[in-house]
């Protein structure tokens, strides 16, 4: 696990705080979107990088939460309260993760990948093939959730700068929560499970319960991200739940470097920004994306955040020899 460099983190934080003062609306909205994806990617890193559970169905929890926001509104012009709809949406994602996890965690390895994929496809087709929330077309959400506490107007989710800072706070809180979680006995046990599950059981750990708890927490945090993604775009459709979305977020985690959370954030920034860059250059940008990902994986097998480490070792090796 690569150690986070505090100086670098602080610098990144300053840059994120200062960004709205330096650029226009386009980048403020783009970076807000990236921060949402970063929270989503961190939640998956808890499974893939920390616990060693490769899930290919994580979009189900992201998407369900977005749908819950839309379904919570009595009609699509009425604003719902953030403070009631957010807990509802996150709880729905957590519950779905608990049910899917309870079944999927009976399998291991490649079967786990297939079973999580299958369950998320089931959720996808529930929203795709029924008339719930617009079927395959999806549906709009015309008003943002209102954030008043009593008569106190707090912040305005329709204002892109307000929304940006809300997402920055969300990102920091999610990171802080997961860091504390990883430092606890629970977090140490999860790393133990990734390292050697058989040994963990022989020591007396109920690894199934640990994995299910991690799966549920990851689902809840993915739901948190999905809710705000729906808020930002004012639109939900089944694509939010699709396996493309699951693969996309998995790519962020792998690209950034697994198991240290910061990697997931870096991966989200790297993937979305390169997508943005390449798609502005050519309409065949997916080809360039493919090349970029292959190059990144070959040159930096431990991801962008583990990269320094690999190169340093290589240099040290060269000098030593």
């Amino acid at each position: 696990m690569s150690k986070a460099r505090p100086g670098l983190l602080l610098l990144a934080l300053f840059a994120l705080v200062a960004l709205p003062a330096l650029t226009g609306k386009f980048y403020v909205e783009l970076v807000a979107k990236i921060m949402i994806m970063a929270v989503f990617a961190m939640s998956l890193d808890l499974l893939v990088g920390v616990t060693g559970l490769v899930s290919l169905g994580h979009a189900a929890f992201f998407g369900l939460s977005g749908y819950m926001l839309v379904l919570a509104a009595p009609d699509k012009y009425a604003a719902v309260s953030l403070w009631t709809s957010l807990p509802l949406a996150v709880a729905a994602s957590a519950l779905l993760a608990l049910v899917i996890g309870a079944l999927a965690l009976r399998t291991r390895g490649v079967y786990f990948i297939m079973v999580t994929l299958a369950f998320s496809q089931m959720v996808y087709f529930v929203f795709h093939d029924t008339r719930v929330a617009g079927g395959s077309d999806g549906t709009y959400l015309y008003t943002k959730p209102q954030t008043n506490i009593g008569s106190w107007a707090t912040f305005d989710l329709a204002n892109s700068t307000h929304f940006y800072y809300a997402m920055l706070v969300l990102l920091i809180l999610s990171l802080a929560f997961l860091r504390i979680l990883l430092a606890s006995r629970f977090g140490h046990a999860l790393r133990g499970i990734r390292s050697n599950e058989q040994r963990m059981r022989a020591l007396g750990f109920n690894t199934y319960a640990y994995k299910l708890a991690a799966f549920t927490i990851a689902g809840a945090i993915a739901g948190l991200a999905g809710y705000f993604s729906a808020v930002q775009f004012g639109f939900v459709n089944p694509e939010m739940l699709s396996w493309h979305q699951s693969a996309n977020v998995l790519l962020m985690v792998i690209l950034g470097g697994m198991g240290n959370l910061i990697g997931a954030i870096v991966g989200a920034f790297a993937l979305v920004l390169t997508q943005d860059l390449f798609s502005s250059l050519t309409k065949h940008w997916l080809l360039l994306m493919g090349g970029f990902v292959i190059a990144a994986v070959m040159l930096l097998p431990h991801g962008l955040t583990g990269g320094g480490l690999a190169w340093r070792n290589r240099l040290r090796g060269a000098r030593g020899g």
Partner: protein
Amino acid sequence: MAEALLAAKELTRRFGGLVAVDRVSLDLHRGEIHALIGTNGAGKSTLINLLAGELAASSGTISFRGEALARLRPERMARLGVGRTFQRSNVFAELSAFENCRLAAQARLPRAWAVHESAQRCETSNTAAARALDTVGLSPRGRAAASELSHGERRGLEIAMCLATDPHVLLLDEPLAGMGTEESRQVLGLLRSLRDGRAILLVEHDMDAVFAVADVITVMADGSVLASGPPERVRNDQAVRAAYLGETI
């Protein structure tokens, strides 16, 4: 005789047509080192895996403190106080020796819901881990990654991790395998000191070692018990002598 801590009765395990363990009965008592010997493929490791809950028995019962156990699982056996080591070193390679033991000690005090408490600063686990490392003489190597330890040190770490969970019963699967004479001597000394208050099942190939420390010896051949009893009686048993023809027992 006092009630056995861990007892197997008519334990059988089949793999397809092969009967790996055939109606084996075995009592492990507190304060005793019970050695289990037999040729390769005699079913010793299968028996340990059955007792540790790693494998389900085809028939027969396992009881702990006189109570028959249903639905055995490794984590359940460990929580009851049945600790085990593996034939091939089975540690957390990327963690340090101390961290391996702390994680093991944590199993006694999981408090998984206390997510605000740092695992690194857990006094109980740290103390238990330090004591376990000290017992096997690995304290000076506490900060080394488990993957960097020598073979003998890793075997010691296996035992230390097991001790960190504070077990009543120790199931040791060939703890001396691959060790030098001096290392073996130390481990045998350690086993003698661990005997107090605990029941130990020792699977071992080294006959000299077995006869040096065992209070009871069970000999297995082709999945079933050939002979069982105090070392002297086993040494003079006709069936055992026939099975070990050519070897000096």
